[in-house]
C-alpha cells in the first residue's frame, strides 16, 4: 500500500514535470497540420439579428418586457462554397447511415485511435461516390470535465475527425463541425461503461431538402 502511494506520488511528480515542459514548449507555435475552417477568411464581426421568438427581456427584479419582433434576418451563410446551400440552407439529417461509424475516443483525448480509422475510411468512400450532400460532425464528451472545458474538447474531437477526412481527400467545404460538450450523452450512467460510449464523434449526413 505504502509503496503504491509512493509510486503514485512519483507518477504525479513525473506527470507534472512532463506537463510543465510540454506547457512551455508546446503551447507557443502554430503547427502546420491545422486545417482552417472554410470561410474563415471572409468578412468577420458580429452579425446583427433581430430578437428571436425565444428571447425574453426583463431587468432583474423589475417588470418583464415582452419579446419584440419576429426574426427577419437569418444567420448569414459562412462561405462553404458550393456546399453552402446544403449546410446552411434547408436540409435533411440522416443520423442512421453512419451510425456504425461513430468514432470513439479515449478519456481526455482527441486523437483518432487506430481502431476507429476504418470507420472514417468508409465515410470517406461514401463521399467519393456521392455529390451534393455534406457531413455534420458532432463532438461529444463524457461528464468528467468541467462544462467549458468539455466544449473545447468536443470541438477538438470534431475537428480531429474533420482533419482525418480531409486527409482522405474529402472536400473540407463539405464538413460542418459542432461541439456539444457533455450535454448530449447517449448513456446517462456514471461509470466507465457509460463514459466510453459518450466520448464520441457522431457523423450525420446532410442532404438537400427537395
Amino acid at each position: 500500500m505504502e509503496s503504491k502511494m509512493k509510486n503514485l506520488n512519483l507518477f504525479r511528480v513525473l506527470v507534472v514535470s512532463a506537463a510543465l515542459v510540454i506547457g512551455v514548449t508546446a503551447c507557443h507555435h502554430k503547427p502546420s497540420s491545422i486545417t482552417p475552417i472554410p470561410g474563415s477568411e471572409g468578412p468577420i464581426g458580429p452579425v446583427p439579428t433581430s430578437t428571436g421568438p425565444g428571447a425574453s427581456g426583463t431587468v432583474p427584479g423589475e417588470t418583464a418586457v415582452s419579446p419584440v419582433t419576429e426574426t427577419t434576418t437569418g444567420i448569414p451563410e459562412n462561405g462553404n462554397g458550393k456546399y453552402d446551400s446544403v449546410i446552411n440552407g434547408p436540409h435533411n439529417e440522416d443520423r442512421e447511415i453512419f451510425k456504425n461509424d461513430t468514432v470513439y475516443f479515449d478519456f481526455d483525448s482527441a486523437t483518432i485511435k487506430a481502431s476507429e480509422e476504418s470507420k472514417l475510411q468508409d465515410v470517406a468512400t461514401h463521399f467519393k461516390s456521392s455529390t451534393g450532400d455534406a457531413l455534420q460532425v458532432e463532438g461529444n464528451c463524457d461528464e468528467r470535465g468541467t462544462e467549458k472545458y468539455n466544449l473545447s474538447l468536443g470541438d477538438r474531437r470534431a475537428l480531429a475527425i474533420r482533419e482525418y477526412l480531409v486527409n482522405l481527400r474529402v472536400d473540407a467545404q463539405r464538413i460542418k463541425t459542432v461541439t456539444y460538450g457533455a450535454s448530449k450523452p447517449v448513456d446517462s450512467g456514471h461509470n466507465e461503461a457509460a463514459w466510453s460510449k459518450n466520448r464520441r464523434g457522431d457523423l450525420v449526413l446532410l442532404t438537400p431538402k427537395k
Partner: protein
Amino acid sequence: MKLNLNLMLAALLFGALSLQAQDRVIEIRKSTTRLIPVSITGLTGEAADVLKFDLSVLGIEVADSPEYIINGSDNGRVEGSLTPAGASHPLWLRAYAGGSVRAQAHAFADDIAKELRQTTPIFRTKVAFRLSRVGATEVCVSDYDGYGMIVLTHDATLVSSPSWIPGGHSLLYTSWMNNKTEIYEHNLATGARRVFAGYPGASFSAEVAPDGRRVAMILSKSGSPNLYVCNLDGSGLKELTFTRDDDSSPCWAPDSREICFVCRSGRAMLQKISADGGAAVTVHAGGAYGNLTSPDWSPDGSQIAFTSGSRPFHIWVMPASGGEAKMVADGEDPCWAPNSRTLIFTQQGNDKQVLSLLDVPTKHVKTVRQISGSCSEPSWAR
C-alpha cells in the same frame, strides 16, 4: 415623519456613544478566518430568514456566546441595530425604506457584513446560470441566493456559459439555437438579442473584461479551438493562441490587461497571456493535481479559483501569481462575488447539480434556494 426624526436623533446619539465600544470591536475583528457568533432578536418570518442566511454566507452564525447582538423589527419596514456583546449602546441603528421586505433585510445584512467582515456588499447582487431540464437548457438570472429567478431564454435548445457584461444590463451566452455553436448578446432591459460571434466552426465561452471594453472567447475558425479577443462592439478581432490543442475557459484579470485560460497540452493547465498578445505563461498551482480548469480571477486581483480533477471535482484557490494552492470545497466551476471572499460554484447533489456559496476563509458552504432542474455555470454580476 415624527418617528423618522426620533430615529435619526437616536442614531446620532448612539453613534456618539458607540465610540466607547470601538476598542473592543477592533479586538474582536482580529481574525477573518473564523466564524463570528451572533444573536438575532426581534425580526420575524422572511426578514429573519433572509438575515440569517445572508450572515451565514459570510461565516456569521447565530450561536451561543454571541459576540454581537443584532436586534430589529419588521413592522412594515425593517429596522435594526448592531451591538457588540457587553456594550451598553449599539454601534448603529438603521431603518430601511422602499423595495420588498427581502430587499430591506438584505440591505440590513449588507450593513452588518460591512461592519464585521469589512467586505464589499453582495446581498443585493445578481447571478446568471444555466438551468438544465428534460430536453433543454436555458439561461436564468436570479438574486445571489436563488430567489427571484427569471428564465431568460425559451429556445428549447442548448445554452452554455452565461456571462455578465459589466453594469449588469446584458449577458453574453453560447447558444445552439441555429444548430451552430454561437455567442449571443442579450439585453435584459429590452429582450433584444443578436449574434455577438458566429464565426465558421464554433464560437463559445465569452467573457467580458471588467472595464467592459474587450471580450475574450474561444473560436475554432482556424481549425483548432483557440483564444481570441475583440472589442465589445465585435470589431478588432485578434487571435491570441495558435496551438493545435484546445484552449478553453478564459477569465480576466481585474486590470483588464491579462487573461487566464486553460490550455490542454497533455493535460489541462492554467496559463496567463496578455490581452494584447504574446507568449502564454503557465501558472504554477502547487499541490493541485489532474486537469486544472475553469479559472476565475478575484475582483481584488489577489487570487485565482479553479477546478481540479475529473468527477469528483474539487475547488482550489491560489495566489494570482501562482504558488501554493489550497483545496477549499468539493465542486466545480467557481465564480467570485464582488467581495473577493465568497465563491458561487456547482455542487453535485442527488441526481442533479445545485449552486452553492462558499465563504473561502471559513470554508463555510450554503446551498442557494432549490428549484426543479439542474443548475450549473454560475456567473456573478460584478
